[in-house]
């Protein structure tokens, strides 16, 4: 059993589908996908843009603010007149706000459903896998309220169009997407010496306090640690702080409300560089001086980070871990690193080096599937094009331990078996396998399906268990929960 077909379908792709089996040479099958990948298939093109969602988010925040002020006013008036505030008034206004909030969350659910649907039906599953890989590399998490409505558009706008482009372009698109700016607090970071900070510092409020505004280094640190150079690659606290200063100015027009928002040039929801928030002056980062150049100052830093050998190594290591083994082979890391450096971060060149490397092709089942991979592979195996029901799409991933776009940390989900292979996780998969089987199982012949999908990696024991199962449904559940299917 060489397992080359299964490796192409399962490890590089998203799991075998009965109507899309590998024909001919497995490596050629993968390389040909570059030409047919669709960055915006219909179900994704139908989803609202970040600009639209930001418009709604800004409107919601204004509406909520007005409601709060109105409630405070009523309370004040009630206290002045000695009357109780009418509960009826409050109840009349609350639902409008709830409705807007629901609308904001709906785009997360429909976006996740579109992501699943695209992963199930795509005929370029390797490229689609790379979309998931990069979205997790440049992770944002929907458990932050200002990210939830934007998280789907983030993947669709910042990752999908660049997955066959250059790392540099993807980095810039990811870092300057509103979802990332909100997630890592960039919209609140203001240069301590900027025009805005100086003005605020001189203004005393009626109650005698001053508003505190200033630098937030969250985005700068995570770009260096998680997106480009990698942790412990030699940058210092000072580099982080200097980079944070260079990044000040990038924000979302109309966001934050009040005078601050009105003063930003640009349509509400647009990403703008506001010089009034920018820390003036030259910056020194990793020993290189960057002259004051407005928005171009931080863009130049980003370009240099994308070119850095540390970035090449960091990205090569993550790719090798994803496609070869949890402990990635040094030979493969070195090869990918070279491909990255020689092509100036051209991603198709790096993918070609990946696909033509020998290391991922030597051992079938070397990687334990994470819950996303396993679920998508299960649904592809039974030929579904979408998950039944919008809510189910989200709940199932949460119950299996990997909620869609909700890694909970900017490091994204881990790519190690030890993170996913646990007793609780295993039982949840078995229960989900049974659920899929209950839905479609009795219409399918799992014996035939297992032969078709896993021909070159199916163990005789699994085949025997499927054959002896009490029902076709149980047979299908056994296939999906089998040791071979748990891995890719």
């Amino acid at each position, binding site marked *: 059993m060489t397992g080359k077909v299964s490796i192409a379908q399962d490890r590089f792709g998203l799991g075998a589908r009965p109507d899309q089996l590998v024909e001919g040479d497995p490596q050629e099958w993968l390389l040909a996908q570059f030409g047919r990948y669709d960055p915006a298939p219909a179900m994704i093109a139908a989803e609202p843009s970040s600009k639209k969602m930001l418009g709604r988010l800004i409107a919601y925040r204004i509406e909520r603010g007005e409601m709060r002020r109105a409630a405070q006013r009523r309370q004040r008036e009630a206290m002045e007149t000695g009357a109780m505030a009418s509960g009826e008034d409050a109840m009349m206004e609350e639902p409008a706000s709830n409705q807007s909030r629901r609308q904001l969350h709906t785009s997360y659910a429909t976006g996740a459903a579109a992501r699943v649907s695209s992963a199930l039906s795509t005929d370029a599953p390797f490229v689609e896998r790379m979309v998931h890989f990069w979205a997790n590399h440049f992770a944002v998490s929907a458990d932050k309220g200002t990210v939830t409505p934007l998280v789907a558009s983030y993947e669709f706008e910042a990752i999908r169009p660049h997955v066959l482009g250059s790392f540099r372009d993807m980095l810039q698109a990811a870092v300057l997407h509103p979802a990332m700016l909100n997630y890592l*607090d960039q919209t*609140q*970071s*203001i240069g*301590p010496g900027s025009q805005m*900070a100086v003005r605020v510092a001189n203004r005393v409020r009626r109650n005698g306090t001053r508003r*505190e*505004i*200033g*630098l*937030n*280094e*969250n985005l700068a*640190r995570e770009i260096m*640690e998680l997106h480009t150079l990698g*942790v*412990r690659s030699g940058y210092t*606290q000072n580099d982080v702080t200097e980079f944070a200063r260079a990044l000040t100015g990038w924000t979302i027009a109309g966001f934050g409300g009040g005078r601050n928002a009105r003063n930003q040039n640009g349509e509400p929801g647009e990403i703008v560089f506001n010089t009034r928030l920018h820390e003036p002056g030259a910056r020194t980062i990793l020993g290189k001086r960057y002259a004051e150049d407005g928005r171009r100052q931080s863009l130049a830093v980003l370009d240099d980070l994308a070119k850095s050998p540390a970035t090449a190594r960091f990205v090569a290591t993550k790719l090798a871990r994803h496609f070869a083994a949890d402990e990635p082979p040094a030979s493969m890391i070195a090869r990918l690193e070279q491909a990255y450096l020689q092509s100036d971060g051209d991603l198709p060149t790096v993918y070609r080096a990946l696909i033509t490397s020998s290391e991922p092709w030597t051992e079938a089942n070397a990687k*334990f599937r994470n819950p996303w991979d396993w679920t998508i592979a299960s649904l592809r195996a039974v030929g579904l094009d979408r998950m039944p029901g919008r809510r189910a799409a989200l709940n199932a991933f949460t*119950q*299996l*331990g990997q909620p869609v776009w909700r890694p*909970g*940390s900017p*490091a994204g989900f881990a790519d190690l*078996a*030890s*993170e*996913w*292979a*646990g*007793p*609780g*996780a*295993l*039982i*949840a998969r*078995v*229960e*989900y*396998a*049974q*659920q899929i089987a209950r839905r479609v199982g009795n219409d399918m012949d799992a014996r035939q399906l297992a032969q078709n999908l896993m021909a070159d990696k199916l163990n005789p*024991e*699994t085949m025997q*268990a499927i054959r*002896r*199962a*009490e029902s076709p449904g*149980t047979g299908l*559940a*056994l296939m999906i*929960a*089998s*040791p071979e299917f*748990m891995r890719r």
Partner: protein
Amino acid sequence: MTIALSRRRLLGAAGLAGASMALPGMAFAQAATAKRLVFVIQRGAADGLAIMPPMGDPDLMRLRAGLTETEATPLDSMFALHPSLGVVSKMFANGEARGYHAIATDYRNRSHFDGQNVLESAASRPYELPTGWMGRLLPLLSPDDARALAMVPAVPLALRGEMTVSTYANNRLPDASEDLMQRLTMLYEADTELAPLWTEAVKTKEMAGDIGGNNGRNGGELGKLAAALMNGPEAARVMMIETGGWDTHSAQKRRLSQQLNGLDTLISELKLGLGDAWSETLVIVATEFGRTAAINGTGGSDHGTASAALVLGGNLGPGPKVIANWPGLAADKLYQGRDLAPTMHFGEMATAELSRHYRLDAAKVSAIFGA
């Protein structure tokens, strides 16, 4: 025809190994006491300076007036407790809680993920050790006391070691059929990675029983669930509970109040659920590192160095309410001019508490922490 085995019988039929192991375990249960240990990890760098503010330090209000709760409960002449920790403050009054301050691991950089790796492994640098301090503690305990469980789908680093550890992740998926369970038991038997996980899964599933309806979302539910999973003669005695949401870069005051309210409820429910066993329970609450001494530009704080840890339990013995060699918050006393300087090692605190709790030789315990 298939024989429908009950899950209990399936467990018994899993092999003679299971049956023979039950005997010494039961014998031990009568002789030894039932010590319990709970590690509540605060992922994201919890702000020790806000949780246990040093109200007696003259520099506190200069640096972080906007982060400090003025109505904090005084603990001694220097330290106070965040007002959202109401139940914990009563525990302090009853000698059931102890604080440690200016505490840190060996890790001195500011990456969450590296910091948590060191907190869990108790190594001197990230990714040095593949096992965790709890995982290395288990072999020192009696077999009954060493039954460990993590409330997450996979075993966290802190619990990894030579002993088997269960995990319990709450989910609302319907139960799998007996036929499927039985066939999978056979199918996984030959798989060295999946077989032990499956055995644990089947066992844990049985014990979780009627509490499957809890969703574990808020602290109270989590505390209740943890207590339920630690009750009963065959239940876990060592437990790790994950909490996140401590990375308060902005709007810290409000967010931290909510976080600490959740932690307070968790501990309250845990104590309530454990009942009499609380007198034999030690709870350690700790984070990977602290946060900057000064408030940042967005009403929050950034990644720092030393933080505070809490220890709770029904039998903590005598001692001061807060143990700290306070370095002070003056500009020249801060670590790298920005963070609370560490003056006590996490391993030192853990060694003292664990050796007292389990009546173990301190030298043996400190070896777990590399000392």
